[in-house]
Protein backbone atom coordinates (compact mmCIF):
# COMPACT_ATOMS: atom_id res chain seq x y z
CA UNK A 1 0.00 0.00 0.00
CA UNK A 2 1.46 3.41 -0.93
CA UNK A 3 2.50 5.46 2.06
CA UNK A 4 0.03 8.23 1.31
CA UNK A 5 -2.95 5.83 1.31
CA UNK A 6 -1.86 4.28 4.53
CA UNK A 7 -1.61 7.71 6.04
CA UNK A 8 -5.18 8.44 4.98
CA UNK A 9 -6.42 5.12 6.34
CA UNK A 10 -4.69 5.80 9.64
CA UNK A 11 -6.29 9.21 9.86
CA UNK A 12 -9.72 7.78 9.13
CA UNK A 13 -9.13 5.06 11.72
CA UNK A 14 -8.14 7.66 14.30
CA UNK A 15 -11.18 9.78 13.65
CA UNK A 16 -13.47 6.75 13.78
CA UNK A 17 -11.99 5.38 17.01
CA UNK A 18 -12.06 8.75 18.73
CA UNK A 19 -15.59 9.38 17.52
CA UNK A 20 -16.88 6.03 18.76
CA UNK A 21 -15.28 6.37 22.19
CA UNK A 22 -16.54 9.96 22.44
CA UNK A 23 -20.03 8.72 21.57
CA UNK A 24 -20.03 6.17 24.40
CA UNK A 25 -18.67 8.72 26.87
CA UNK A 26 -21.48 11.10 25.96
CA UNK A 27 -23.95 8.24 26.18
CA UNK A 28 -23.49 8.16 29.97
CA UNK A 29 -24.50 11.81 30.27
CA UNK A 30 -27.44 11.25 27.94
CA UNK A 31 -28.46 8.22 29.99
CA UNK A 32 -28.50 10.20 33.22
CA UNK A 33 -30.55 12.98 31.60
CA UNK A 34 -32.87 10.41 30.06
CA UNK A 35 -33.54 8.79 33.43
CA UNK A 36 -34.69 12.16 34.80
CA UNK A 37 -36.77 12.98 31.73
CA UNK A 38 -38.46 9.58 31.43
CA UNK A 39 -39.27 9.35 35.14
CA UNK A 40 -40.64 12.89 35.10
CA UNK A 41 -42.76 12.24 32.02
CA UNK A 42 -44.20 9.04 33.48
CA UNK A 43 -45.04 10.69 36.78
CA UNK A 44 -46.76 13.70 35.18
CA UNK A 45 -50.19 12.13 35.71
CA UNK A 46 -49.61 11.86 39.43
CA UNK A 47 -47.93 15.29 39.65
CA UNK A 48 -50.97 16.87 37.96
CA UNK A 49 -53.40 14.97 40.20
CA UNK A 50 -51.73 15.63 43.57
CA UNK A 51 -49.16 18.38 43.12
CA UNK A 52 -47.05 19.00 46.21
CA UNK A 53 -49.68 17.28 48.32
CA UNK A 54 -48.04 14.04 47.15
CA UNK A 55 -44.99 14.73 49.28
CA UNK A 56 -46.63 15.74 52.57
CA UNK A 57 -49.80 13.64 52.79
CA UNK A 58 -49.76 10.15 54.21
CA UNK A 59 -52.82 8.37 52.82
CA UNK A 60 -51.80 5.53 50.49
CA UNK A 61 -55.02 4.00 49.21
CA UNK A 62 -54.78 2.33 45.80
CA UNK A 63 -58.50 1.39 45.90
CA UNK A 64 -59.67 4.97 46.36
CA UNK A 65 -56.93 6.23 44.05
CA UNK A 66 -55.40 8.47 46.70
CA UNK A 67 -51.65 8.61 47.06
CA UNK A 68 -49.42 10.40 49.55
CA UNK A 69 -45.75 9.58 49.71
CA UNK A 70 -44.92 10.78 53.22
CA UNK A 71 -44.80 7.35 54.94
CA UNK A 72 -42.48 5.98 52.25
CA UNK A 73 -40.20 9.03 52.32
CA UNK A 74 -40.20 8.97 56.12
CA UNK A 75 -39.31 5.26 56.16
CA UNK A 76 -36.52 5.70 53.61
CA UNK A 77 -34.95 8.51 55.60
CA UNK A 78 -35.41 7.04 59.08
CA UNK A 79 -34.15 3.56 58.18
CA UNK A 80 -31.10 5.13 56.53
CA UNK A 81 -30.40 7.30 59.56
CA UNK A 82 -30.59 4.24 61.84
CA UNK A 83 -28.17 2.49 59.50
CA UNK A 84 -25.74 5.41 59.53
CA UNK A 85 -25.85 5.77 63.32
CA UNK A 86 -24.90 2.11 63.72
CA UNK A 87 -22.54 1.83 60.77
CA UNK A 88 -20.36 4.92 61.14
CA UNK A 89 -18.63 4.12 64.46
CA UNK A 90 -18.14 0.49 63.48
CA UNK A 91 -16.81 1.35 60.01
CA UNK A 92 -14.39 3.95 61.32
CA UNK A 93 -13.23 1.41 63.92
CA UNK A 94 -12.59 -1.10 61.16
CA UNK A 95 -10.78 1.46 59.01
CA UNK A 96 -8.59 2.54 61.95
CA UNK A 97 -7.87 -1.07 62.77
CA UNK A 98 -6.86 -1.82 59.19
CA UNK A 99 -4.66 1.24 58.66
CA UNK A 100 -3.12 1.92 62.05
CA UNK A 101 -3.16 -1.23 64.09
CA UNK A 102 -3.46 -4.55 62.33
CA UNK A 103 -0.22 -6.52 62.06
CA UNK A 104 0.89 -6.93 58.45
CA UNK A 105 -0.20 -10.56 58.27
CA UNK A 106 -3.78 -9.69 59.29
CA UNK A 107 -4.29 -6.58 57.15
CA UNK A 108 -4.78 -8.48 53.92
CA UNK A 109 -7.15 -11.24 55.08
CA UNK A 110 -9.32 -8.92 57.19
CA UNK A 111 -9.47 -6.29 54.47
CA UNK A 112 -10.51 -9.01 52.02
CA UNK A 113 -13.13 -10.37 54.42
CA UNK A 114 -14.67 -6.91 54.79
CA UNK A 115 -14.72 -6.45 51.03
CA UNK A 116 -16.34 -9.84 50.57
CA UNK A 117 -19.06 -8.69 52.91
CA UNK A 118 -19.60 -5.85 50.41
CA UNK A 119 -19.91 -8.18 47.46
CA UNK A 120 -22.66 -10.38 48.92
CA UNK A 121 -25.84 -9.56 46.97
CA UNK A 122 -28.37 -7.56 48.94
CA UNK A 123 -31.09 -10.16 48.52
CA UNK A 124 -28.99 -12.54 50.63
CA UNK A 125 -28.90 -9.99 53.46
CA UNK A 126 -32.65 -9.54 53.17
CA UNK A 127 -33.41 -13.23 53.17
CA UNK A 128 -31.02 -13.95 56.01
CA UNK A 129 -32.55 -11.07 57.93
CA UNK A 130 -36.06 -12.42 57.44
CA UNK A 131 -35.40 -16.08 58.22
CA UNK A 132 -32.61 -15.94 60.81
CA UNK A 133 -32.26 -12.48 62.29
CA UNK A 134 -35.90 -11.42 62.66
CA UNK A 135 -36.97 -14.51 64.68
CA UNK A 136 -33.98 -14.01 66.99
CA UNK A 137 -34.87 -10.36 67.47
CA UNK A 138 -38.51 -11.00 68.17
CA UNK A 139 -37.74 -13.71 70.68
CA UNK A 140 -34.64 -12.55 72.53
CA UNK A 141 -34.13 -8.84 71.94
CA UNK A 142 -37.25 -6.86 71.21
CA UNK A 143 -39.42 -8.03 74.16
CA UNK A 144 -36.69 -6.86 76.54
CA UNK A 145 -36.29 -3.67 74.60
CA UNK A 146 -40.00 -2.95 75.05
CA UNK A 147 -39.87 -3.88 78.76
CA UNK A 148 -36.81 -1.93 79.74
CA UNK A 149 -36.54 0.85 77.17
CA UNK A 150 -40.23 1.05 76.27
CA UNK A 151 -40.63 4.30 78.20
CA UNK A 152 -38.75 5.96 75.35
CA UNK A 153 -41.31 6.10 72.52
CA UNK A 154 -38.63 5.19 69.97
CA UNK A 155 -38.05 1.74 71.46
CA UNK A 156 -41.66 0.73 71.55
CA UNK A 157 -43.96 -1.16 69.27
CA UNK A 158 -44.81 -4.71 68.35
CA UNK A 159 -41.86 -7.10 68.91
CA UNK A 160 -42.29 -8.84 65.56
CA UNK A 161 -38.65 -8.81 64.53
CA UNK A 162 -39.84 -6.94 61.46
CA UNK A 163 -39.97 -3.18 61.31
CA UNK A 164 -38.00 0.01 60.98
CA UNK A 165 -35.25 -0.90 63.47
CA UNK A 166 -34.45 -4.38 62.09
CA UNK A 167 -34.43 -2.96 58.55
CA UNK A 168 -32.07 -0.19 59.63
CA UNK A 169 -29.82 -2.71 61.34
CA UNK A 170 -29.49 -4.95 58.27
CA UNK A 171 -28.87 -1.82 56.19
CA UNK A 172 -26.07 -0.95 58.60
CA UNK A 173 -24.47 -4.37 58.12
CA UNK A 174 -24.69 -3.78 54.37
CA UNK A 175 -23.07 -0.34 54.30
CA UNK A 176 -20.34 -1.03 56.88
CA UNK A 177 -18.06 -2.58 54.25
CA UNK A 178 -18.58 0.38 51.87
CA UNK A 179 -17.86 3.03 54.45
CA UNK A 180 -14.93 1.16 55.96
CA UNK A 181 -13.15 0.45 52.72
CA UNK A 182 -13.56 4.03 51.46
CA UNK A 183 -12.37 5.41 54.82
CA UNK A 184 -9.45 3.01 54.84
CA UNK A 185 -8.38 4.33 51.44
CA UNK A 186 -8.69 7.89 52.72
CA UNK A 187 -6.76 7.18 55.94
CA UNK A 188 -3.97 5.79 53.81
CA UNK A 189 -3.64 9.17 52.09
CA UNK A 190 -2.33 10.80 55.28
CA UNK A 191 1.37 11.51 54.66
CA UNK A 192 3.40 9.25 56.97
CA UNK A 193 5.57 12.20 57.93
CA UNK A 194 2.59 13.85 59.69
CA UNK A 195 1.90 10.76 61.75
CA UNK A 196 5.56 10.24 62.49
CA UNK A 197 5.91 13.77 63.82
CA UNK A 198 3.00 12.99 66.14
CA UNK A 199 4.70 9.86 67.41
CA UNK A 200 7.96 11.80 67.57
CA UNK A 201 6.61 14.14 70.25
CA UNK A 202 5.41 11.16 72.26
CA UNK A 203 1.73 10.93 71.30
CA UNK A 204 -0.04 7.62 71.80
CA UNK A 205 -1.53 5.86 68.81
CA UNK A 206 -5.03 7.06 69.65
CA UNK A 207 -3.78 10.65 70.03
CA UNK A 208 -2.20 10.48 66.59
CA UNK A 209 -5.46 9.17 65.16
CA UNK A 210 -7.59 11.80 66.91
CA UNK A 211 -5.35 14.80 66.43
CA UNK A 212 -3.57 14.08 63.16
CA UNK A 213 -5.35 11.47 61.06
CA UNK A 214 -8.98 12.43 61.68
CA UNK A 215 -8.58 16.22 61.27
CA UNK A 216 -6.50 15.73 58.12
CA UNK A 217 -9.09 13.44 56.54
CA UNK A 218 -12.25 15.06 57.92
CA UNK A 219 -13.96 16.10 54.73
CA UNK A 220 -13.08 12.81 53.06
CA UNK A 221 -14.53 10.82 55.93
CA UNK A 222 -17.70 12.90 55.90
CA UNK A 223 -17.87 12.16 52.19
CA UNK A 224 -17.47 8.44 52.84
CA UNK A 225 -20.29 8.55 55.37
CA UNK A 226 -22.55 10.39 52.93
CA UNK A 227 -21.64 7.84 50.26
CA UNK A 228 -22.83 5.15 52.65
CA UNK A 229 -26.00 7.17 53.26
CA UNK A 230 -26.59 7.28 49.50
CA UNK A 231 -26.31 3.51 49.32
CA UNK A 232 -28.65 3.04 52.26
CA UNK A 233 -31.30 5.37 50.83
CA UNK A 234 -31.57 3.41 47.60
CA UNK A 235 -31.11 -0.11 48.93
CA UNK A 236 -34.10 -2.24 48.06
CA UNK A 237 -33.99 -5.94 48.75
CA UNK A 238 -32.65 -5.95 52.31
CA UNK A 239 -35.22 -3.37 53.33
CA UNK A 240 -38.15 -4.95 51.52
CA UNK A 241 -37.80 -8.21 53.43
CA UNK A 242 -37.57 -6.61 56.85
CA UNK A 243 -39.41 -3.32 57.00
CA UNK A 244 -42.91 -4.79 57.11
CA UNK A 245 -44.57 -2.80 54.33
CA UNK A 246 -47.06 -0.76 56.26
CA UNK A 247 -47.93 2.73 55.02
CA UNK A 248 -48.11 4.19 58.49
CA UNK A 249 -45.90 6.70 60.20
CA UNK A 250 -45.05 5.55 63.70
CA UNK A 251 -42.50 6.93 66.11
CA UNK A 252 -42.04 3.45 67.56
CA UNK A 253 -39.11 2.00 65.65
CA UNK A 254 -40.13 -1.61 66.25
CA UNK A 255 -43.35 -1.09 64.30
CA UNK A 256 -43.60 -2.12 60.66
CA UNK A 257 -43.09 0.74 58.22
CA UNK A 258 -42.28 1.09 54.54
CA UNK A 259 -39.74 2.81 52.34
CA UNK A 260 -39.76 4.13 48.79
CA UNK A 261 -37.76 1.19 47.48
CA UNK A 262 -39.83 -1.39 49.37
CA UNK A 263 -43.07 0.16 48.09
CA UNK A 264 -41.78 -0.01 44.53
CA UNK A 265 -40.59 -3.61 44.90
CA UNK A 266 -43.89 -4.76 46.38
CA UNK A 267 -46.46 -2.82 44.46
CA UNK A 268 -45.06 -1.97 41.03
CA UNK A 269 -46.16 -5.14 39.26
CA UNK A 270 -49.58 -5.00 40.91
CA UNK A 271 -50.35 -1.45 39.82
CA UNK A 272 -52.87 -1.69 37.02
CA UNK A 273 -54.47 1.77 37.04
CA UNK A 274 -52.50 4.52 35.33
CA UNK A 275 -52.64 6.85 38.32
CA UNK A 276 -51.33 4.16 40.68
CA UNK A 277 -48.44 3.37 38.36
CA UNK A 278 -47.67 7.03 37.83
CA UNK A 279 -47.59 7.63 41.60
CA UNK A 280 -45.13 4.78 42.00
CA UNK A 281 -42.91 6.24 39.28
CA UNK A 282 -43.07 9.59 41.06
CA UNK A 283 -41.84 7.81 44.21
CA UNK A 284 -38.94 6.52 42.15
CA UNK A 285 -38.24 10.02 40.86
CA UNK A 286 -38.20 11.40 44.43
CA UNK A 287 -35.77 8.66 45.46
CA UNK A 288 -33.55 9.38 42.48
CA UNK A 289 -33.47 13.10 43.20
CA UNK A 290 -32.67 12.55 46.89
CA UNK A 291 -29.85 10.10 46.17
CA UNK A 292 -28.51 12.28 43.35
CA UNK A 293 -28.13 15.22 45.74
CA UNK A 294 -26.63 13.08 48.50
CA UNK A 295 -24.17 11.33 46.19
CA UNK A 296 -23.14 14.56 44.46
CA UNK A 297 -22.36 15.99 47.89
CA UNK A 298 -20.32 12.93 48.83
CA UNK A 299 -18.44 13.14 45.56
CA UNK A 300 -17.55 16.79 46.11
CA UNK A 301 -16.28 16.07 49.62
CA UNK A 302 -14.28 12.98 48.68
CA UNK A 303 -12.96 14.55 45.48
CA UNK A 304 -10.37 16.47 47.47
CA UNK A 305 -8.75 13.22 48.49
CA UNK A 306 -8.65 12.09 44.87
CA UNK A 307 -10.52 8.95 45.75
CA UNK A 308 -11.38 7.45 42.40
CA UNK A 309 -14.96 6.40 43.07
CA UNK A 310 -17.00 3.22 42.96
CA UNK A 311 -16.02 -0.34 42.28
CA UNK A 312 -16.24 -1.69 45.77
Amino acid at each position, binding site marked *: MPVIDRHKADKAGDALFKGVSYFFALLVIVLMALIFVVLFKESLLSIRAFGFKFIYTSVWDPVAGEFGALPAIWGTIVSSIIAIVIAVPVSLGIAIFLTEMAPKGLKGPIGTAIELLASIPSIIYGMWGLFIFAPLLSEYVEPYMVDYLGFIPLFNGAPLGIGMLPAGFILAIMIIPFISSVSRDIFQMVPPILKESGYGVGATRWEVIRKVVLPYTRSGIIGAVILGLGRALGETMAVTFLIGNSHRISLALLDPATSISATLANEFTEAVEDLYLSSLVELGLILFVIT*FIVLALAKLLIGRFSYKGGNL
Partner: protein
Amino acid sequence: MDAQSFHYMRRKFYNLLALSVSVLSAGFGIFFLFWILKDVISFGLPALNGSFFTELPAPPGAEGGGLANAIFGTILITVVATVIGVPSGILAGTYLSEYGRKSRVASVVRFVSDILVSAPSIVVGVFVYALLVKPFGGFSAIAGAVALSIIMLPVVIRTSEEMLKLVPDATREAALALGAPHWKVTVHVVYRGALRGITTGVMLAVARVSGETAPLLFTSFNNSFWNFDMSEPTATLTVTIFNYAMGPYEDWHQKAWGGAFLITAIVLCVTLLSRLIVRRKAA
Protein backbone atom coordinates in the same frame (compact mmCIF):
# COMPACT_ATOMS: atom_id res chain seq x y z
CA MET B 1 0.71 8.96 92.54
CA ASP B 2 1.83 12.33 91.23
CA ALA B 3 -0.12 14.28 88.71
CA GLN B 4 2.20 13.62 85.84
CA SER B 5 2.10 9.87 86.03
CA PHE B 6 -1.69 10.03 86.49
CA HIS B 7 -1.90 12.02 83.29
CA TYR B 8 0.28 9.47 81.57
CA MET B 9 -1.84 6.58 82.83
CA ARG B 10 -4.97 8.33 81.60
CA ARG B 11 -3.52 8.76 78.14
CA LYS B 12 -2.50 5.12 78.09
CA PHE B 13 -5.98 4.13 79.23
CA TYR B 14 -7.73 6.12 76.49
CA ASN B 15 -5.33 4.68 73.96
CA LEU B 16 -6.12 1.16 75.05
CA LEU B 17 -9.87 1.88 75.14
CA ALA B 18 -9.97 3.36 71.63
CA LEU B 19 -7.85 0.61 70.19
CA SER B 20 -10.00 -2.08 71.79
CA VAL B 21 -13.11 -0.47 70.36
CA SER B 22 -11.63 -0.56 66.90
CA VAL B 23 -10.57 -4.20 67.26
CA LEU B 24 -14.06 -5.02 68.46
CA SER B 25 -15.66 -3.31 65.49
CA ALA B 26 -13.47 -5.19 63.06
CA GLY B 27 -14.53 -8.34 64.91
CA PHE B 28 -18.19 -7.27 64.65
CA GLY B 29 -17.97 -6.96 60.86
CA ILE B 30 -16.23 -10.29 60.45
CA PHE B 31 -18.60 -11.98 62.86
CA PHE B 32 -21.58 -11.07 60.67
CA LEU B 33 -19.78 -12.17 57.51
CA PHE B 34 -19.20 -15.62 58.92
CA TRP B 35 -22.65 -15.82 60.48
CA ILE B 36 -24.36 -15.06 57.16
CA LEU B 37 -22.05 -17.38 55.23
CA LYS B 38 -22.59 -20.18 57.74
CA ASP B 39 -26.38 -19.95 57.38
CA VAL B 40 -26.27 -19.66 53.60
CA ILE B 41 -24.13 -22.81 53.45
CA SER B 42 -25.93 -24.84 56.09
CA PHE B 43 -29.42 -24.10 54.71
CA GLY B 44 -28.46 -23.82 51.06
CA LEU B 45 -26.24 -26.82 50.50
CA PRO B 46 -28.83 -29.47 51.51
CA ALA B 47 -31.32 -27.90 49.07
CA LEU B 48 -29.06 -28.56 46.13
CA ASN B 49 -29.58 -31.83 44.30
CA GLY B 50 -29.82 -33.11 40.77
CA SER B 51 -33.34 -31.93 40.13
CA PHE B 52 -32.50 -28.45 41.48
CA PHE B 53 -30.26 -27.96 38.46
CA THR B 54 -32.26 -29.86 35.85
CA GLU B 55 -36.00 -29.54 36.53
CA LEU B 56 -38.59 -26.83 36.16
CA PRO B 57 -40.29 -25.42 39.28
CA ALA B 58 -43.07 -27.58 40.71
CA PRO B 59 -46.57 -26.08 40.85
CA PRO B 60 -47.14 -23.92 43.99
CA GLY B 61 -47.46 -26.08 47.07
CA ALA B 62 -46.16 -29.25 45.45
CA GLU B 63 -42.83 -30.69 46.53
CA GLY B 64 -39.84 -31.24 44.27
CA GLY B 65 -38.92 -29.61 41.02
CA GLY B 66 -35.96 -27.34 40.50
CA LEU B 67 -34.82 -23.93 39.35
CA ALA B 68 -33.15 -24.95 36.09
CA ASN B 69 -34.98 -22.29 34.08
CA ALA B 70 -34.03 -19.56 36.59
CA ILE B 71 -30.36 -20.58 36.52
CA PHE B 72 -30.43 -20.45 32.73
CA GLY B 73 -32.28 -17.11 32.82
CA THR B 74 -29.68 -15.54 35.10
CA ILE B 75 -26.89 -16.70 32.80
CA LEU B 76 -28.73 -15.51 29.68
CA ILE B 77 -29.56 -12.06 31.03
CA THR B 78 -26.12 -11.54 32.56
CA VAL B 79 -24.38 -12.54 29.32
CA VAL B 80 -26.52 -10.20 27.21
CA ALA B 81 -26.00 -7.40 29.73
CA THR B 82 -22.24 -8.00 29.56
CA VAL B 83 -22.29 -7.91 25.76
CA ILE B 84 -24.07 -4.54 25.87
CA GLY B 85 -22.38 -3.00 28.89
CA VAL B 86 -18.74 -4.01 28.71
CA PRO B 87 -17.72 -2.80 25.21
CA SER B 88 -19.50 0.52 25.65
CA GLY B 89 -18.00 0.92 29.11
CA ILE B 90 -14.47 0.18 27.92
CA LEU B 91 -14.84 2.60 25.00
CA ALA B 92 -16.12 5.37 27.26
CA GLY B 93 -13.24 4.61 29.66
CA THR B 94 -10.89 4.82 26.68
CA TYR B 95 -12.22 8.26 25.89
CA LEU B 96 -11.60 9.40 29.47
CA SER B 97 -8.06 8.09 29.63
CA GLU B 98 -6.80 8.52 26.03
CA TYR B 99 -8.63 11.53 24.63
CA GLY B 100 -10.68 13.48 27.17
CA ARG B 101 -8.25 13.39 30.10
CA LYS B 102 -8.65 16.79 31.75
CA SER B 103 -11.32 18.18 29.42
CA ARG B 104 -14.64 19.46 30.68
CA VAL B 105 -16.64 16.67 29.03
CA ALA B 106 -14.43 14.06 30.66
CA SER B 107 -14.93 15.46 34.14
CA VAL B 108 -18.70 15.59 33.64
CA VAL B 109 -18.66 11.97 32.47
CA ARG B 110 -16.63 10.97 35.54
CA PHE B 111 -19.01 12.82 37.85
CA VAL B 112 -22.11 11.30 36.24
CA SER B 113 -20.73 7.76 36.26
CA ASP B 114 -19.65 8.04 39.89
CA ILE B 115 -23.22 8.95 40.74
CA LEU B 116 -24.68 6.21 38.55
CA VAL B 117 -22.47 3.63 40.29
CA SER B 118 -24.30 4.24 43.55
CA ALA B 119 -27.70 5.18 42.14
CA PRO B 120 -30.58 3.06 43.46
CA SER B 121 -30.85 0.02 41.22
CA ILE B 122 -34.61 -0.15 41.64
CA VAL B 123 -34.91 3.26 39.96
CA VAL B 124 -33.02 1.83 36.99
CA GLY B 125 -35.69 -0.87 36.93
CA VAL B 126 -38.46 1.73 36.89
CA PHE B 127 -36.65 3.64 34.12
CA VAL B 128 -36.26 0.57 31.92
CA TYR B 129 -39.87 -0.37 32.60
CA ALA B 130 -41.00 3.00 31.26
CA LEU B 131 -38.59 2.79 28.33
CA LEU B 132 -38.79 -0.82 27.16
CA VAL B 133 -41.57 -2.68 28.95
CA LYS B 134 -44.58 -0.37 28.84
CA PRO B 135 -44.22 0.80 25.20
CA PHE B 136 -43.52 -2.72 23.89
CA GLY B 137 -46.35 -4.35 25.74
CA GLY B 138 -44.73 -6.67 28.22
CA PHE B 139 -41.90 -7.85 30.42
CA SER B 140 -38.93 -9.23 28.53
CA ALA B 141 -35.49 -10.72 29.04
CA ILE B 142 -33.97 -7.98 26.90
CA ALA B 143 -35.39 -5.28 29.21
CA GLY B 144 -33.77 -7.06 32.17
CA ALA B 145 -30.47 -7.24 30.32
CA VAL B 146 -30.61 -3.55 29.44
CA ALA B 147 -31.30 -2.68 33.10
CA LEU B 148 -28.31 -4.73 34.23
CA SER B 149 -26.09 -3.21 31.55
CA ILE B 150 -27.00 0.29 32.79
CA ILE B 151 -25.88 -0.76 36.27
CA MET B 152 -22.71 -2.31 34.87
CA LEU B 153 -21.77 0.57 32.58
CA PRO B 154 -20.44 3.12 35.12
CA VAL B 155 -18.46 0.46 36.99
CA VAL B 156 -16.75 -0.67 33.78
CA ILE B 157 -16.09 2.93 32.70
CA ARG B 158 -14.37 3.89 35.92
CA THR B 159 -12.28 0.73 36.31
CA SER B 160 -11.17 0.65 32.69
CA GLU B 161 -10.16 4.32 32.91
CA GLU B 162 -8.14 3.60 36.05
CA MET B 163 -6.45 0.61 34.47
CA LEU B 164 -5.69 2.40 31.19
CA LYS B 165 -4.20 5.29 33.13
CA LEU B 166 -1.72 2.91 34.76
CA VAL B 167 -0.05 2.37 31.39
CA PRO B 168 2.86 4.86 31.36
CA ASP B 169 2.71 7.69 28.82
CA ALA B 170 6.27 6.84 27.75
CA THR B 171 4.94 3.56 26.33
CA ARG B 172 2.37 5.46 24.26
CA GLU B 173 5.00 7.91 23.07
CA ALA B 174 7.35 5.10 22.10
CA ALA B 175 4.68 3.53 19.91
CA LEU B 176 3.63 6.88 18.44
CA ALA B 177 7.26 7.67 17.64
CA LEU B 178 7.40 4.55 15.49
CA GLY B 179 4.68 6.15 13.38
CA ALA B 180 1.73 4.10 14.66
CA PRO B 181 -1.59 5.95 14.50
CA HIS B 182 -3.21 6.82 17.81
CA TRP B 183 -5.95 4.20 17.56
CA LYS B 184 -3.45 1.43 16.84
CA VAL B 185 -1.41 2.54 19.83
CA THR B 186 -4.53 2.35 21.97
CA VAL B 187 -5.63 -1.05 20.72
CA HIS B 188 -2.30 -2.82 20.38
CA VAL B 189 -0.24 -1.20 23.12
CA VAL B 190 -2.42 0.41 25.78
CA TYR B 191 -5.16 -2.22 25.85
CA ARG B 192 -2.59 -4.97 25.96
CA GLY B 193 -0.85 -3.35 28.91
CA ALA B 194 -4.10 -2.89 30.81
CA LEU B 195 -5.67 -6.21 29.81
CA ARG B 196 -5.35 -7.91 33.15
CA GLY B 197 -6.71 -4.98 35.13
CA ILE B 198 -9.65 -4.48 32.79
CA THR B 199 -10.48 -8.20 32.88
CA THR B 200 -10.56 -8.04 36.67
CA GLY B 201 -12.83 -5.00 36.61
CA VAL B 202 -15.18 -6.67 34.15
CA MET B 203 -15.32 -9.81 36.27
CA LEU B 204 -16.23 -7.78 39.34
CA ALA B 205 -18.90 -5.90 37.42
CA VAL B 206 -20.39 -9.14 36.07
CA ALA B 207 -20.38 -10.69 39.53
CA ARG B 208 -22.09 -7.64 40.94
CA VAL B 209 -24.93 -7.52 38.42
CA SER B 210 -25.52 -11.27 38.51
CA GLY B 211 -26.65 -10.83 42.11
CA GLU B 212 -28.96 -7.89 41.38
CA THR B 213 -32.65 -8.34 42.06
CA ALA B 214 -34.32 -4.95 42.19
CA PRO B 215 -33.82 -3.92 38.54
CA LEU B 216 -35.17 -7.27 37.30
CA LEU B 217 -38.41 -7.29 39.28
CA PHE B 218 -40.30 -5.34 36.67
CA THR B 219 -38.18 -5.79 33.59
CA SER B 220 -37.51 -9.49 33.04
CA PHE B 221 -40.17 -10.35 35.67
CA ASN B 222 -40.60 -14.11 36.12
CA ASN B 223 -41.59 -17.26 34.30
CA SER B 224 -42.37 -20.81 35.47
CA PHE B 225 -41.20 -22.37 32.24
CA TRP B 226 -38.21 -22.49 29.96
CA ASN B 227 -37.82 -19.39 27.88
CA PHE B 228 -35.33 -18.88 25.08
CA ASP B 229 -37.03 -15.84 23.57
CA MET B 230 -35.48 -12.50 24.52
CA SER B 231 -38.82 -10.73 24.12
CA GLU B 232 -40.61 -12.86 26.71
CA PRO B 233 -40.56 -12.70 30.53
CA THR B 234 -37.76 -14.80 31.96
CA ALA B 235 -37.12 -16.28 35.39
CA THR B 236 -33.87 -15.38 37.13
CA LEU B 237 -32.35 -16.85 40.28
CA THR B 238 -32.55 -13.64 42.26
CA VAL B 239 -36.18 -12.81 41.45
CA THR B 240 -37.11 -16.44 42.14
CA ILE B 241 -35.35 -16.26 45.52
CA PHE B 242 -37.35 -13.12 46.30
CA ASN B 243 -40.69 -14.68 45.36
CA TYR B 244 -39.97 -18.00 47.05
CA ALA B 245 -38.65 -16.47 50.27
CA MET B 246 -41.72 -14.24 50.52
CA GLY B 247 -44.01 -17.19 49.72
CA PRO B 248 -45.82 -19.42 52.22
CA TYR B 249 -44.38 -22.89 51.46
CA GLU B 250 -41.53 -24.57 53.33
CA ASP B 251 -40.34 -26.21 50.09
CA TRP B 252 -40.09 -22.75 48.48
CA HIS B 253 -38.00 -21.47 51.35
CA GLN B 254 -35.59 -24.36 50.90
CA LYS B 255 -35.33 -23.67 47.20
CA ALA B 256 -34.70 -20.01 47.99
CA TRP B 257 -31.82 -21.00 50.30
CA GLY B 258 -30.44 -23.22 47.55
CA GLY B 259 -30.56 -20.34 45.09
CA ALA B 260 -29.02 -18.02 47.67
CA PHE B 261 -26.15 -20.45 48.18
CA LEU B 262 -25.56 -20.74 44.45
CA ILE B 263 -25.52 -17.00 43.78
CA THR B 264 -23.39 -16.21 46.86
CA ALA B 265 -20.87 -18.91 45.96
CA ILE B 266 -20.52 -17.59 42.42
CA VAL B 267 -20.19 -13.95 43.47
CA LEU B 268 -17.68 -14.65 46.24
CA CYS B 269 -15.57 -16.95 44.05
CA VAL B 270 -15.38 -14.38 41.26
CA THR B 271 -14.51 -11.62 43.74
CA LEU B 272 -11.77 -13.72 45.35
CA LEU B 273 -10.41 -14.82 41.98
CA SER B 274 -10.17 -11.25 40.73
CA ARG B 275 -8.36 -10.22 43.91
CA LEU B 276 -5.88 -13.01 43.40
CA ILE B 277 -5.23 -11.81 39.85
CA VAL B 278 -4.62 -8.28 41.11
CA ARG B 279 -2.31 -9.51 43.84
CA ARG B 280 -0.24 -11.63 41.48
CA LYS B 281 0.15 -8.58 39.29
CA ALA B 282 1.37 -6.53 42.22
CA ALA B 283 3.84 -9.21 43.32
